């Protein structure tokens, strides 16, 4: 496929995988989201940036079922959906890595990867005794980590609490990537990481995109955002101030829009 053909087909199938229309979410008298719309297209990294309290986290929580918007509509592949719980979003192939790392410290790596969707043994042991296929899940966890190129996690039987911040992040990202069939959402994936670990996570983001999985990335870190994002959604005071691309605007422009010093 030549580049023009790819572009042509891309345009022809430019139906958003995930679409949000006029999302409103209030917490008492605080307006978290004030009519936000968003489109996520196949094979792109969409970054969401914004100052503290601009509504980034609320926005992705509404997209992933962790919060229910007061009003507004959500569409997955053109079909309207109503997410009441994180599971609902997951059923539609949307996987999320939350800022506070939704991993269970005392459980091991494999258990965390399969948390909430454990696999049972075949036959009576599984159906009658509900016995977990621990060995199978460990093998699969190892395979998945290798496939994602996460080399820092060799032993999937280690409790997550014994891992470094970067390794924990890798577990969380691996879980999302392993099960996310349509969208992977990452909330501040590099916030707690060192330079080398950050680069590994960013590479993971590129790999996911190259495999055709669109990624929504929430970050404070402008260089990281401009490094991996195809488009950048800028939140300001609960609204979408602009949607730009790294080509159309500079980091300074983005910050100016973010803080209200300029408009797109």
């Amino acid at each position: 496929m030549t580049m023009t053909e790819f572009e042509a087909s891309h345009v022809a199938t430019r139906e958003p995988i995930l679409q949000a229309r006029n999302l409103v979410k209030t917490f008492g008298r605080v307006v978290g989201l004030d009519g936000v719309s968003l489109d996520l297209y196949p094979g792109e990294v969409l970054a969401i940036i914004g100052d503290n309290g601009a509504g980034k986290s609320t926005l992705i929580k509404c997209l992933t079922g962790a919060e229910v918007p007061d009003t507004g509509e959500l569409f997955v592949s053109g079909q309207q959906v109503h997410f009441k719980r994180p599971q609902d979003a997951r059923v539609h192939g949307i996987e999320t890595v939350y800022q506070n790392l939704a991993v269970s410290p005392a459980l091991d790596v494999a258990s965390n990867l399969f948390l909430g969707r454990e696999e049972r043994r075949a036959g009576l042991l599984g159906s009658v005794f509900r016995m977990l296929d621990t060995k199978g899940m460990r093998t699969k966890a190892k395979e998945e980590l290798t496939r994602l190129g996460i080399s820092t996690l060799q032993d999937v039987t280690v409790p997550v609490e014994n891992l470094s911040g970067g390794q924990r992040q890798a577990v969380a990202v691996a879980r999302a990537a392993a099960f996310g069939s349509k969208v992977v959402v990452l909330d501040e994936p590099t916030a707690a990481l060192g330079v080398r670990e950050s680069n590994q996570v960013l590479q993971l983001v590129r790999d996911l995109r190259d495999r055709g999985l669109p990624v929504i990335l929430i970050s404070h870190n402008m260089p990281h955002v401009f490094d991996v994002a195809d488009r950048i959604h800028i939140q300001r005071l609960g609204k979408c101030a602009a949607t730009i691309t790294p080509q159309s605007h500079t980091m300074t422009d983005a910050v100016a829009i973010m803080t209200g010093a300029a408009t797109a």
Partner: protein
Amino acid sequence: MTQQQTAGPPSAGQADLAEEFLDRQTPLSRIRNILHRYPAVSPALVLLIAVVVFSLLNERFLRVENLSLITQQVSVVGTLAIAQTLIILTAGIDLSVGAVMILSSMVMAQLAVNNGIPAPLALLAGLVVGLAAGALNGFLVTRFRLPPFIVTLGTLNIFIALTLLYSNGATVRGSAMPPLLTWTGTTFPVGPVRISTGVVMMLLLYIAVAFILGKTAWGRHVYAVGDDKEAARLAGIPVNRVLMSVYLAAGAVLAVGAWIQIGRTNAASPNGGVDLNLDSITAVVIGGTSLFGGRGSVWGTLLGALIVGVFRNGLSLAGLDVLYQTLAVGVLIIVAVSVDQWIRKVKS
């Protein structure tokens, strides 16, 4: 290690001392790492030491009749401690276990004796009481988001009052009861030891709950909820449903405990079981289950229950006043929690 020892020049005395001091830290932290990985090791050691010490203090301690007695003494607290473990694993605590058990046993006995209800139905009614009590606790914890400590402190008093109102404070004697209710008190010989049916039931419960906690998704979810509730929710675990099911399961276990209690004491008394609450918590804590949730196992709890039983039995055989038993149990709790805190400091 050996290289250092052989290569160390004998003249460098001070440097050697310093090195030795640094080396001395490693075995301690190594022990800590082992204890962190296998939490049942420390209660097992305590039990072993206690058995050795008490058998030296009084030669009657190790006699088979006494060992058989200890297992029977442990059977009720050991069963309540299973329910307590389930709830503590979710980072909760249940102060009402003893009261629920007593209420359930009174319902079983009264229905069978005073109302002439067939024994199996009376047992079933006791089970329903246990489940209802668990449902009430679970409902208040999940729907009203009240701390389990407060909820069960309230229901503890409610269940005690209900028991006294229902029974008029009267004890139902075992001789009046149908044999099925006191069946848990019957014993059979295993080699030289006499084992009661109640002890076997307790052990079967331990095996079942250990399997469920360790080998099923539900068990893993119980740990995840106790470990980090929000993380569990975000991982897609229905937290409230898991909590509710834990309180219901605990209620069912307590009903079995009620049956074992009737057989053990050959009576159903509204006044028994005051110290059972604290003994069950003690067993769980000594067994290495963390009060902060998410860590521990029922096997540790069984060891903890045995430790409490051995201490109470051993101290009374040694001729000490019952007050000293309570004192010893108190010291045990504080030591166990301190050791738990120390172990949890492990970071790789």
